[in-house]
């Protein structure tokens, strides 16, 4: 810890405007520098989240994305650029982020997260950001975060709407406490493109970065809430009080009271993307049944 007790002059200059905030100061800045966040998905939500995590000085940031940049992404995925078309998104994002803040250690994972690699991928990090775009990965991330006891800052956006929730933090619920089983694939919003406004992903991704920063610096109130955002409403934001952890939750519930099971098929991608030969990992079988 010795080397983490000081900031360089450059860091003082860079972070001064946030360090003078109430209840922030040097301690919070040092916490940011020694902490690590992994962002799953460098798309519409991941790009703005990554920008602000990097700018704020989160010391180590993992970026996971198997996808490549396409011109149709640029309407909202503002870390990528025209010349990056065809490049892996994790690598493209890292390149843009390095020029914002070269102090940050960026670790890129240019491949998919799967039931086989999720635990080892997330384990080294303090906080996980769900910036993905499909139900299968959302369940996989939640179940893995429960096993690893890590907070999961989950964002989602579709059409003109967004949702934000930090799962598995304090005595708050996990994703499965709220949604014990995935919707049937045929109802899960078909993978035909639903449409999305860029600023909606921007707002939610920004707020995901803020949640992580609040958790790291001790500014988070710890009350489980779900933020609902509807961009076209006159009253666009609604903050909802959530249940605490459900003892009967098949993922995070109390042993002996759990109800229902976690099916291997929960992690099967509903549509699109590569479909590996999925099988449920012993990890989840063992700890959840």
């Amino acid at each position, binding site marked *: 810890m010795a080397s983490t007790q000081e900031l360089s002059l450059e860091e003082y200059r860079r972070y001064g405007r946030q360090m003078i905030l109430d209840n922030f100061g040097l301690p919070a800045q040092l916490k940011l520098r020694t902490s690590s966040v992994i962002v799953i998905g460098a798309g519409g939500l*991941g790009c703005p989240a990554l920008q602000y995590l990097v700018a704020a000085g989160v010391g180590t940031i993992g970026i996971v994305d198997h996808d490549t940049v396409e011109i149709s992404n640029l309407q909202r995925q503002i870390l990528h650029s025209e010349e990056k078309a065809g490049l892996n998104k994790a690598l493209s994002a890292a390149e843009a982020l390095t020029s914002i803040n070269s102090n940050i250690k960026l670790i890129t994972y240019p491949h998919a997260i799967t039931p086989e690699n999720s635990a080892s991928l997330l384990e080294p990090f303090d906080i996980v950001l769900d910036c993905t775009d499909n139900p299968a990965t959302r369940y996989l991330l939640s179940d893995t975060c429960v096993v690893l006891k890590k907070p999961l800052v989950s964002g989602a956006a*579709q*059409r003109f709407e967004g*949702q934000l929730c930090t799962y598995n933090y304090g005595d708050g619920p996990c994703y499965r406490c709220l949604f014990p089983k995935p919707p049937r694939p045929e109802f899960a919003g078909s993978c035909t493109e639903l449409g999305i406004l860029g600023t909606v992903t921007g707002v939610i991704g920004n707020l995901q970065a803020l949640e992580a920063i609040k958790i790291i610096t001790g500014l988070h109130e710890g009350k489980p809430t779900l933020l609902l955002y509807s961009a076209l409403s006159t009253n666009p934001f609604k903050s*909802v009080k959530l249940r605490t952890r459900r003892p009967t939750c098949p993922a995070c519930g109390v042993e002996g009271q759990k109800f229902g099971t976690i099916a291997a098929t929960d992690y099967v991608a509903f549509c699109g993307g590569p479909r590996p030969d999925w099988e449920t990992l012993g990890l989840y079988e063992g700890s959840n049944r």
Partner: protein
Amino acid sequence: MSQSTLSIKVEFGGGLELLFSNQRSHKVSLPSHVPTAPPDANTTSEQGKKESGRPADITYLMYWMRDNLLKEREELFIENGTVRPGILVLVNDTDWELEGEGEYVLQDGDEIVFISTLHGG
């Protein structure tokens, strides 16, 4: 049994509004108690009739919405007597699980939100 009605504000989000005339906000008036005899046998469900006479609760509201306002496929709203997986219900900005879920007894002026979890990013 009371003949009075409740005025309830119902909101849909996360795409569920597409099932309800693409209208996010609905003001509905429904009986304060579940009717004993269905006023119209065609539009009242078996489940909605069950335990008739009880005070109107969210389960009743759910069936009432289905019978009176649902425009499209029921299976996208109701499954096994409750909301389908992926839908969260809010009672006056609070998770319905803290309020008794389907058994929460409606109060005049309540705001009930049915929201579908989003998956996009």
